[in-house]
């Protein structure tokens, strides 16, 4: 699939999305032909015990009007949520009804497309499938969601590329998006963006989908990393809200009393070097400059390593083996007074006993040099170069990011993800919705943080983008921080890492 193929496409259909009006739908069927309608019931039955009820019901009703034989679609989405609890059963029923609307003409039959997704949590799955089904109705596609274990997406996608068995659609994060763009695994999507409309996304998230000025994906949702701290302990000790890294470091040191309680919980185990991507931007430190030259060996990087060493000294032992998940449980159990984590930690905080949510504050991570800070994690949706339905995929993508459809999904999905659509960020429906409201201040902090954080932390410039894949694959940044956590000198760790990045650049020719 090429961008040219994509361009040869009427996106009329998609334009009508959300309007739901008879007129628009008539335009859709305008040419007159065989119309296929999916009737779909997605029902999520939750456990009866301590009350949560999520009912997502999507019914596409078909009304045949005698004279004009226009198909009206009526979409109802009802989401009722009270408290979050384990969802037990997902029942999906589906029935395809084919109706001849007018004589000859072309056929618009439902195409099945595949999507390699990671989501396995019942609630997230139900929301995701309802979203895909709703948008799919408009694009006349049925999205088959195949689960790929979260950490195994990279090898799976590469094998798909090498053997010509890519699905139609994948998800990525900025660094994998660039790598896959360079390897021609994901297709350029500038035309989808043109159809969705300009300024629908923040500038930083949109830039993070681009390689050499061309966008290869649509920002799906954000998970910005913010600084969580124990407000109750701050009050006990008379500390003010932290504004700088010096505040955070001093307060952490004052609250540190191992092994019962630590000032910070730092972690390095995750496949992505999140600690590096959190701390380096705060010092305006990046692996590559905008022109692609190696910028790692800077005073800024050194500063971030020295700060990391200070944080390690007031963290539980075994930083290199700690992952974000372990940190979250530790934080929930009062083991640490500070932790950087993504806004999706809201889920855990909202469910924690003893009204922990009210005791936890969050601030955007402070900057030291420049005005950037922290990692604004982001998931991106991509159309692969292997799709056999490029036109339908484009329609699907435009529908997925329609304001109503996107917001409907976002209100019902995993708590704590931050929306990428600016209209949702700036509106009130999302923030006022029952589930989101209690954690709105945390997620808002994340949205605010994402505006100044580069969504991939340690990278600048399209030149560096393709090389960054190698830097990450060889764990250069993670190892640099690990050495410091193991007692190594920051200067030496930085020197090794810089030398290695320079060798990578030289080898790439």
């Amino acid at each position, binding site marked *: 699939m090429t961008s040219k193929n994509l361009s040869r496409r009427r996106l009329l259909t998609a334009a009508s999305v959300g309007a739901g009006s008879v007129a628009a739908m008539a335009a859709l069927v305008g040419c007159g032909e065989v119309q296929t309608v999916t009737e779909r019931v997605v029902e999520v039955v939750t456990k009866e015990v301590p009350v949560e009820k999520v009912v997502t019901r999507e019914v596409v009703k078909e009304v045949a009007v005698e004279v004009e034989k226009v198909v009206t679609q009526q979409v109802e989405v009802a989401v009722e949520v009270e408290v979050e609890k384990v969802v*037990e059963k997902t029942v999906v029923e589906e029935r395809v009804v084919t109706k001849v609307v007018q004589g000859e003409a072309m056929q618009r039959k439902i195409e099945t497309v*595949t999507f*390699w997704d*990671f989501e*396995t*949590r019942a609630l997230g799955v139900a929301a995701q499938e309802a979203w895909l089904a709703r948008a799919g109705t408009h694009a006349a596609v049925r999205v088959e969601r*195949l*689960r*790929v*274990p*979260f*950490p*195994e997406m990279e*090898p*799976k996608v*590469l*094998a798909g590329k*090498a*053997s*010509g*068995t890519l*699905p139609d659609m994948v998800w990525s994060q900025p660094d994998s998006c660039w790598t896959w763009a360079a390897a021609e695994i994901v297709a350029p999507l500038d035309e989808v963006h043109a159809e969705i409309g300009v300024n629908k996304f923040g500038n930083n998230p949109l830039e993070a989908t681009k390689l050499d000025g061309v966008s290869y994906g649509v920002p799906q949702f954000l998970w910005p990393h913010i600084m969580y701290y124990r407000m109750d302990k701050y009050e006990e000790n008379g500390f003010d809200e932290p504004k700088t890294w010096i505040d955070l470091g001093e307060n952490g040191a004052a609250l540190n009393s*191992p*092994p*019962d*309680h630590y000032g910070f919980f730092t972690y390095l185990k*995750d496949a992505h070097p999140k600690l590096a991507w959190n701390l380096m931007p705060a010092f305006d430190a990046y692996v590559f400059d905008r022109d692609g030259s190696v910028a790692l060996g800077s005073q800024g990087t050194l500063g971030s390593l020295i700060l990391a060493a200070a944080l390690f000294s007031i963290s*539980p032992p075994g930083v290199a083996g700690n*992952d*974000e*998940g*372990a940190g*979250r*449980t*530790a934080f*929930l*159990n*009062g*083991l640490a007074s500070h932790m950087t*984590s*993504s806004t*999706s930690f809201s889920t*855990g905080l909202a469910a924690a006993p003893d009204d922990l949510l009210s005791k936890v504050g969050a601030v955007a991570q402070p900057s030291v040099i420049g005005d950037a800070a922290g990692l604004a994690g982001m998931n991106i949706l991509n159309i692969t170069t292997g799709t056999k339905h490029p036109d339908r995929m484009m329609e699907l993508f435009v529908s997925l990011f329609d304001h109503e459809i996107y917001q409907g999904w976002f209100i019902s999905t995993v708590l704590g993800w931050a929306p990428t659509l600016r209209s949702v960020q700036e509106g009130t429906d999302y923030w006022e919705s029952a589930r989101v409201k209690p954690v709105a201040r945390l997620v808002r902090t994340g949205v605010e943080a994402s505006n100044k954080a580069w969504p991939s932390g340690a990278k600048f410039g399209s030149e560096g983008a393709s090389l960054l894949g190698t830097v990450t694959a060889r764990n250069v940044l993670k190892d640099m921080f690990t050495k410091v956590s193991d007692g190594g000198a920051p200067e030496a760790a930085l020197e090794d890492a810089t030398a290695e990045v320079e060798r990578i650049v030289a080898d790439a020719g």
Partner: protein
Amino acid sequence: MIKRLRRSRILGTHRRRAVLALVITILTIFPVYFMVSGALSHPDIFITRLGGQTEGGLVDILFPRPPILQHFQTVLSDALFRRYLINSLIVATITMALAILVCTLGAYSLARLRFPGSNMIGRVALLTYTVPSVLLLIPLFKIVVGVGIADSLTSLVLTYTTFAIPFSLWMLRAFFQSLPPELEDAAMVDGAGRLGALFRVILPLSVPGIAATALFAFILAWNEFLFALIFTSSDDVRTLPIGVALTMTREQTAVDWATAMAASTISSLPIFIVVMLGQRGFVRGLTAGGVKG
């Protein structure tokens, strides 16, 4: 029997030996024990505690009180997980059967029927283990796609059978060589051909060797992760390792340890049973063939 009882070796008396065996066994199985007790425990044991509570923590893990079955319910109530369990049983069973068939015929050929290149074939087969399997992943997947069996249990069965062949072939060949050729000669004189002799005389005597092959192939097919990950995508044909990985990474950043331990226990159970049934044969199969080489 009296003779055997008197057998006293470097490790001393039977009592000392039994104590030593017990110590070794405890060291060997404590991780497995923790897997099961972890699955039966309250999820709190997987949470970092405040300093003073560690003592109680250890006892809680060793003796879950009360044992909780909820994690097993969570795993087994997942229809997809059950599907993966059945798929794994199918793949491992067929792999086992196919490996027995291919290796029995092949090993008999190498043990009894001299033909040009027979030595070479045996050696080359064993040498295929020198290839790091990671290297095979992409080229083999391309072949699987080319042949049109991508995303199928067939692709896994064929791959695992091949991985089981070299060791099984070596083991069975040694086993067949340990049987006196006169047995077949007698059968052939009675009018049975080579194949008749193989099936009527040799195979009934080779149950231990075949059990060893079966066990080896079953374990290999049951445990394999990487090829299963790459070769299959649909839930209909996924095997258990992928299912457990999906369970473990459910929360992406946080691991649901207790549920994961339950999934691990369930996925280890069938194979424990197979081992209990087959281990005697495994040792006897090797015993006959091993020394003669």
